[in-house]
């Protein structure tokens, strides 16, 4: 549905987006992840035709944004980072204006607007001035605006920024519901959000793609190493030397005392039967093993490791 090839954008000497390529399949939700200033918004502005690229191509449904901008724009609903709203219009007036801009036939407008307002939860606020709405509701108007015209593709730039937790959950629910018939690109610098909604993630940093995969495979990729947090009631030195003798253990050290007695350790290894061997080894020595907690690499860890090391994880 969306094909991006060798896309580069320079602002004068500054390279904001450097030769990135990725595809989004029809019906997919793609998470576009990166720290502030990584080039997320720039990329989105180019896909939607707001900014021209320096080089590279963007195709939506087979249409090139540079040669067929109107065909592309018809297919895209865009929620930019700052929702484009006219504060002096009521919600209904604003959505009608957007409907006209997007050439929604007059006859269909009323029904479509009602559906959209119901979906994003604006029905009770339809007669209020946009400027008088709270930030969360303005964000909803921004989302509603993107949905006008029933576009096949939604580009959402940080859709939940500035919302309270309850609203975030609600907006996520709306996006999930929308994803059944649409192709969505969603940017964020909040990781749980992306892992909660998206099927595939592209991590971008300093204008280049740092990683691209499903949330699960991304966590596995980095987390091949088994990492365990242990609490053992035994003498530190002896425990460490005993554990290090176990096959497959690559790292073992203490991290301090546990509050309920015993010592905490951290263990890294490569094989999965370490846990069993560990149990028997400790039992032999009479050191009660009171806690084994696998430490899973969260998206947070992946993100930080990818972004700080700049290493490729695939």
């Amino acid at each position, binding site marked *: 549905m969306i094909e991006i090839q060798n896309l580069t954008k320079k*602002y004068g000497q500054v390279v904001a987006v450097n030769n990135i390529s990725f595809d989004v399949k029809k019906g997919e939700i793609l998470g576009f992840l990166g720290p502030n200033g990584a080039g997320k918004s720039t990329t989105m502005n180019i896909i939607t035709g707001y*900014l*021209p690229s320096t080089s590279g191509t963007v195709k939506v449904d087979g249409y090139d944004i540079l040669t067929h901008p109107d065909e592309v*724009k018809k297919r895209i609903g865009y929620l930019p980072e700052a*929702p484009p*709203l*006219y504060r002096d219009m009521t919600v209904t007036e604003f959505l009608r204006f957007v409907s006209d801009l*997007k050439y929604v036939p007059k006859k269909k407008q009323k029904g479509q607007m009602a559906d959209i307002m119901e979906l994003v939860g604006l029905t009770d606020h339809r007669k209020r001035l946009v400027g008088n709405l709270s930030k969360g509701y303005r964000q909803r108007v921004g989302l509603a605006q993107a949905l006008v015209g029933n576009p096949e593709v939604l580009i959402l730039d940080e859709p939940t920024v500035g919302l309270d937790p309850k609203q975030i959950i609600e907006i996520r629910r709306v996006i999930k519901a929308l994803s059944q018939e649409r192709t969505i690109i969603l940017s964020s610098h909040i990781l749980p959000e992306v892992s909660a909604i998206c099927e595939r993630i592209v991590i971008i940093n300093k204008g280049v793609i740092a990683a691209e995969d499903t949330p699960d495979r991304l966590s596995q990729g980095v987390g091949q190493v088994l990492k365990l947090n242990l609490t053992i009631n035994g003498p530190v030195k002896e425990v460490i030397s005993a554990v290090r003798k176990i096959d497959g253990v690559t790292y073992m050290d203490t991290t301090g005392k546990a509050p309920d007695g015993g010592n905490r350790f951290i263990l890294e290894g490569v094989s999965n039967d370490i846990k069993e061997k560990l149990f028997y080894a400790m039992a032999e020595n009479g050191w009660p093993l009171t806690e084994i907690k696998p430490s899973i690499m969260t998206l947070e860890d992946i993100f930080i490791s990818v972004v700080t090391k700049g290493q490729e994880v695939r």
Partner: protein
Amino acid sequence: MFTVAKKEISTYFKSPIAYVLIGLFMLMISVLFYTPFSIGSGDFLPVMDSMGFFLIFLIPILTMRILAEDRKNGTEVLLLTSPTSLTKIVVGKFLAMYFIFFVITLLSLIYPLIMVAYGAAFTVQLAGAYIGFLLLGAAFISVGVFASALTENQIISAIISFVAMLAFWLAGTFAAEIGGNVAKFLNWISLTSRYDVFTRGLLGLPEIAYFVFFTILFIFLTVRVIERRRWVQG
């Protein structure tokens, strides 16, 4: 095109801007109108001349926000990523401005009509002068819209359009001082010299053509400036 125009018109009439501008202009004309009226002259044409000059102050205030505000508020993104073309958007904005100017022009007709009520004739010259006034307004508004596309700061936009209009207005005055071929050129570009033709009661075809060309040129330049800015600064 009309979508944008309709929206802008309603914005102006929902905010105090339209009313303040209409009120201001009516006040100015009233003061001017007092002069011929007090001396018992039935000639409204000299007032028309000054009305043209007042547009130099009025139009920049009218047009300063028309594009600058969209850029500042980020609503430009909505307009530019919609399937409506940039030309249609700019023309729509121009039409909205022109509509408000047209309302002002209609209201100003009250004064010549008062004269008519007191026995003066509504002359062909006066009708011609009004056509000239409408053309002058179009030219000035196109300059104002253009200036609004140059910056996201409304005050700067107003100043640019004010200076530009003043230059076009004064070109004719300077021409009289300089003389020669330069004068010919200045008279040619001057909007005043051409507007004077109308207020003298003549309907000049080259003048009409010039005003129309002038307006279209500045609308075209506005579109180009917005396009160019997207490519250059991104």
